[in-house]
């Protein structure tokens, strides 16, 4: 399967720099997701890989070959769009057999190929139906089968699940990864949904304002994000403002705005530095001392209770407690909270302020 390499790719529309000097290498058989908020340039980037648009500057390589002046149809890619784009006047089998037909395969071979890919997406029994007779999830599976039936070795997915219901989306993302891995395809998947990105990808590329913020495995980005934007974007997190008051053997004490001391494990900051500590809600827990916090809301999440409050330092706090302990907390109550020192990630205080650094739109 092909590798994909982007070398200093920029795409400029008039005065707008949609993609700004992006370098990226995608390995043979890797499932990479490009994740970012609306307008970050992720769709433009995948279109540049597909050849739907030419980069203003920089180069795209697929399988080591420079794609300059290579038209879409010669790039050996399968492309699935957010808006399901099946031919409404063709039945499922003909939709899937369309690629092979364009490639001038015989009618028997077309049917055989269509059968093979429909079996893979578990829709063999719907071969004779028309797109309008299928539900959204099924239609998108047919789109996928059609993209694969061209014999593509590189699969490009542009928000393939965004138009579907939440519940269908969750089922389909496991299905998608299973399928792609079984065929060993190299896949680039664009999405704004961080949960989707985490559950399908080998590696996630976080984009913002036309550039790459960072790349990493889902576990790396969730547990050790390098950038504060990622910390907030990939999963929910608490952000506490403070100053380093003490640092020895990677054990640091951070003083919050109300004077409370929070202990964290980090070697990266010197005494006196202004920092932000990021701690996920599952690593904040009630204790006999720590951050004094007033609870404002309790929410049942099924597997746990999410408790929301305001700390004395004025930082908003969210923490999770087991289902059996949920009834111990109520609005207006004061509690003391500690954080797991090893699960805390510390960042230099952004010059533009926290709100601006993690802004979602």
């Amino acid at each position: 399967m092909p590798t994909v390499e982007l070398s200093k790719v920029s795409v400029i529309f008039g005065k707008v720099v949609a993609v700004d000097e992006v370098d990226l290498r995608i390995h043979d058989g890797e499932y990479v997701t490009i994740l970012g908020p609306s307008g970050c340039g992720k769709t433009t980037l995948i279109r540049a890989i597909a050849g739907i648009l030419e980069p203003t500057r920089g180069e795209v390589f697929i399988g080591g070959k420079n794609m300059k002046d290579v038209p879409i149809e010669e790039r050996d890619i399968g492309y699935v769009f957010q808006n399901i784009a099946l031919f409404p006047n063709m039945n499922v089998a003909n939709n899937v057999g369309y690629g092979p037909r364009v490639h001038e395969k015989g009618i028997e071979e077309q049917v055989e190929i269509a059968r093979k890919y429909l079996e893979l997406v578990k829709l063999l029994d719907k071969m004779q139906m028309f797109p309008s007779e299928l539900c959204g999830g099924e239609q998108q599976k047919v789109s996928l089968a059609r993209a694969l039936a061209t014999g593509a070795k590189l699969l490009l997915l542009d928000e393939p699940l965004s138009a579907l219901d939440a519940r269908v989306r969750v089922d389909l993302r496991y299905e998608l990864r299973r399928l792609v891995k079984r065929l060993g395809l190299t896949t680039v998947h664009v999405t704004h949904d961080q949960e989707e990105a985490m559950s399908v990808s080998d590696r996630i590329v976080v984009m913002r304002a036309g550039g790459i913020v960072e790349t990493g495995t889902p576990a790396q980005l969730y547990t050790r994000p390098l950038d504060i934007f990622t910390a907030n974007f990939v999963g929910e997190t608490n952000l506490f403002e403070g100053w380093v008051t003490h640092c020895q053997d990677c054990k640091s004490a951070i003083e919050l705005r109300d004077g409370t001391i929070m202990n964290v494990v980090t070697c990266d900051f010197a005494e006196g530095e202004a920092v932000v500590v990021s701690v996920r809600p599952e690593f904040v827990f009630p204790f006999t001392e720590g951050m004094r916090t007033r609870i404002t809301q309790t929410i049942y999440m099924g597997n746990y209770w999410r408790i929301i409050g305001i700390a004395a330092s004025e930082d908003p706090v969210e923490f999770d407690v087991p289902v059996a302990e949920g009834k111990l907390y109520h609005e207006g109550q004061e509690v003391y909270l500690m954080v797991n020192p090893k699960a805390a990630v510390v960042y230099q205080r952004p010059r533009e302020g926290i709100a601006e650094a993690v802004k979602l739109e």
Partner: protein
Amino acid sequence: MPSVRLEKVEKRYDDIRAAEDLNLEVRDGEYLCLLGPTGAGKTTALRLICGLTDLDSGKVFIGGKDVTDLEPERRGTALLSQTYSLFPQLTVAENILFGPDIRDLPEEQRRRTLANMLDLVRLTKRPDAFPGELSGGMSQRTALARALASGAEVLLFDEPLRALDARLRISLRHELRSLAKSLKITVIHVTHDQDEALVMADRIALIRNGHVLQIGEPSQVYDNPVSPFVANFVGQSNFVTGRIIEKGEKTVVRTESGMTVFARQCAMEMGEQVVVGVKIGNTEIAREGDSFFEGIVERVLFEGRNLHVDLLVEGTIHFSAKIPSWRLGKLASGDKVMIRWSAEKASVFPMPEKGLREELKVE
């Protein structure tokens, strides 16, 4: 603020039943989420309440008053659509003041209403912007301000967060709910997203085929589902089918292949064919110890706070489990694990008439 009640409402479009014996009671000042898959009749229910769709039979009450034959503009309701329907050629301020009741007010009062609304939805700096210049979140807040400025006391939200990015959607859940709560308005919020409903609702009404299947607080709907469909739609569930072989404080069910599982107490009879459902988050997997049966790990997916584990039981039954992510690296594809759950976490349902597969369909 008024309560809302639908009584035996029926609505048909040719052979599609959009509302069938639809009964719903929303309390004064309540935040109710109407949750269901596409085509369940959620939007139809909203349109019936505000009068944009005529019903075939039944009654609609708002604030205890029968409004079935009342014109939409006199019901005191405002419908906020998925796409916000702002006028692109009008500014934020003009959009907010567009409502018929406001247009005729004296200038001074209009100015005050506008200032209040802009302040409420944090748009004081953008009154002169056009919708095309706003972000998704801002457009949504403008539409909300317009609905509130019209003096509506019942707000009908049709998937208000759908058009927004996933991460932004999570951030805006609290904001939207707090706003509604601070104004004490009655809200009916339509969504297909069960997480959104769990987080935002005072009560959830689960709707399918134009009919309310279950209504209750999020914890009731999650922990005591009335059917396999509800069990699976609100937090995914695993299912086992079999016959009841023992009854008492817990129910013992034996599958056709001879596996034995426990579930909570139930009203069904000995020997009856049943479905046992357990949430994937309550499905425990362990290397050893007591268990109901064994499974083979098919894959482990990292999802942040949890790992999603897919399992294969007896070579044919698909099971899943959600376990804390600190167990990452301790499980791998091909591993043999023991599967179990506490009896009180599993529900027992009568075998659905059309079979389990049909019952669980989400679209």
